[in-house]
């Protein structure tokens, strides 16, 4: 660790992984409810489990991003963080707010939670992924502002590199777009239209800037390739990302009451969206091949390469699979979407977070890399989780194809629930694969506790 203030990243990483575990546990509950309908009913209805599953994911990814930022900004800017105390204070506020929100989800009926938290004053709740009480959303804004204030000032007083500039643009974009979560028109078409400004422009826009810069940072560290080369790639990749991703928003505007020309624009630009992901894969492999040093942390390199491949598969290929409007007409709102969502989130955002954690955590604990034994365990975690997500995606895709066929294409379309029963075999297989994913996650966590410091800091 070159700068003392980088240490604030550590609690963020720990909390992120803890929330990751919560996310997976609730995922397993939901998966079981798919095939065992009254499991935990009415104590934890499906919608509650889903809120916890998705919100925990978002919060832990954001926690990971923040931790990553606190870790890499001082090193890139070559100066200590402006205020490590503020960073720690915000950590606790964010964690407590997230915790209270989850407790709220689990203990109080959602309508009561809405009433208790003053949703009437500014109704923002009850929209997918933005279920958080309005006061939680306001809290997120406060935390985000304090965070951005802290890191932006740090960069301003220090060295400005492509990596920290792109990271800051991504983070500011993330915060600004989140403000659209407070936009909730009565008109359903407009509601959905601007809802995507948060959801799509996050994951297929500004988050990719964060992803790109974290990836670039780790690549510089583990490969020793010239910063100049890596920064050029970074700019090219994020240009392609935004050039395709901004108008790619159109693929959400096919069937929600928006004009039909979006079918043309959305299809064309989202058909190009795999290109930046493909470039990212090439980038990661190219840089690792050109490496100028053998970094002792093999696990971090594996995560970086994994991010390249899995982001391309999940976000690129599985996204493309159902993005053209004539295809999407049949697949919209089916398990195909769920399949894409699982692999894309894991491949892009989960893996990049784990890549940085894998690189930074040993250093935060005072060594360049973990012992071989620990790294082997971590790689086991990598493979178990990654292979599981591939199979989860395949099973959900199979379920989705069958669902589309039974419910939408065949001559005698079946009602939704009847079609669901027909595909339950795939849901069972998905659930068992989910258990293996959890095992992989536990192995991954266990790797942190394997002692041994073969390599000095």
């Amino acid at each position, binding site marked *: 660790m070159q700068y003392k203030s980088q240490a604030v990243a550590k609690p963020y990483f720990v909390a992120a992984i803890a929330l990751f575990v919560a996310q997976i546990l609730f995922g397993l509950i939901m998966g079981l409810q798919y095939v065992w309908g009254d499991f935990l009913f009415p104590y934890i209805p499906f919608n509650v489990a889903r809120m916890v599953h998705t919100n925990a994911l978002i919060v832990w990814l954001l926690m990971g991003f923040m931790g990553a930022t606190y870790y890499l900004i001082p090193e890139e800017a070559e100066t200590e963080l402006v205020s490590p105390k503020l960073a720690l204070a915000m950590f606790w506020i964010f964690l407590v707010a997230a915790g209270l929100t989850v407790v709220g989800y689990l203990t109080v009926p959602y309508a009561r939670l809405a009433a208790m938290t003053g949703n009437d004053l500014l109704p923002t709740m009850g929209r997918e992924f933005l279920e958080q009480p309005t006061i939680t959303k306001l809290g997120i804004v406060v935390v985000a502002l304090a965070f951005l204030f802290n890191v932006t000032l740090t960069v301003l007083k220090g060295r400005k590199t492509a990596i920290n500039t792109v990271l800051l643009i991504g983070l500011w974009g993330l915060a600004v777009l989140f403000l659209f979560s407070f936009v909730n028109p009565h008109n359903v078409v407009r509601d959905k239209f601007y809802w995507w400004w948060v959801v799509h422009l996050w994951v297929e826009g500004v988050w990719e800037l964060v992803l790109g810069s974290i990836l670039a940072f780790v690549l510089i560290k583990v490969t020793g390739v010239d910063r100049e080369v890596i920064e050029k790639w970074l700019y090219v990749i994020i*240009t*392609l990302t935004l050039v*395709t991703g901004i108008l790619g928003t159109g693929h959400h505007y096919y069937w929600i009451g928006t004009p*039909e*020309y979006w079918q*043309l624009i959305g*299809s064309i630009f989202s058909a*190009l969206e795999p290109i930046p992901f493909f470039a990212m894969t090439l980038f990661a492999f190219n840089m690792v091949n050109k490496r100028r040093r053998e970094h002792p942390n093999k696990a971090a390199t594996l995560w970086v390469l994994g991010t390249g491949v899995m982001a391309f598969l999940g976000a690129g290929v599985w996204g493309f699979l159902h993005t053209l409007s004539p295809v999407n007409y049949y697949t919209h709102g089916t398990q195909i979407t769920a399949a894409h969502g699982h692999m894309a989130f894991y491949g892009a955002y989960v893996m990049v977070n784990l890549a940085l954690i894998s690189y930074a955590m040993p250093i935060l604990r005072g060594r360049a890399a973990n012992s071989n034994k620990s790294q082997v365990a971590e790689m086991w975690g990598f493979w178990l989780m990654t292979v599981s997500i591939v199979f989860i995606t395949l099973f959900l895709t199979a379920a989705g194809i069958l669902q589309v066929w039974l419910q939408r294409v065949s001559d005698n379309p079946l009602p939704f629930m009847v079609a669901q029963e027909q595909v339950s075999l795939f849901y069972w297989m998905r659930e068992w694969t989910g258990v293996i994913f959890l095992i992989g996650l536990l192995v991954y966590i266990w790797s942190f506790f394997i002692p041994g410091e073969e390599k000095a800091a």
Partner: protein
Amino acid sequence: MNAQHRGHAPRPYPPGDLAIWVFILAELAAFFALFAAYAFTRLRHLELFNEMQKTLDSTAGMINTLLLISGSWGVARAVAAVKANHVRASANWLLMAIGSGVGFLIVKYFEYGAKFSAGVGLDTNLFYTFYISLTMFHALHVVLGMVILLFVWNKTRRGGYSAHDHHGMETGASYWHMVDLVWIVLFPLVYVMR
């Protein structure tokens, strides 16, 4: 310059910065998709497309083609001039290219004006969705190309480029030629052939 290159091994990279070429290829891919979508949608609505195409002003399209070709020629001459160290001439050629862009937009202004005042819009019918999306998207590229050329022209005027260093000018020039190239396909496709 010409003599220098003759008989030499081909250059490894196209003129201008490689980064612009990545962008150019992405743009070409987008236009390819748009053209293919047009061609195959036309297939399913032959009568509509053939009939609606007659409502377009192909003379305006032709004049615009002439303007873009001339702009492209101007930029090519500008690059040739700077390579011969004729910096002033180079700046003037760039200005001429920018002027052709202005002319293009003026013609487009009248063309769209006539259409919009006739009540035509993006969702009038499938043909007009394509016509407006394609030409509007292309026209925006003309605007972007003009902005780039303005920067290049300004730098040329101040003596920023020379026979030794004209990397930036070639970067802008390549983008401008791409805009022209795309129109070379767009004009016959949308305005003429049926």
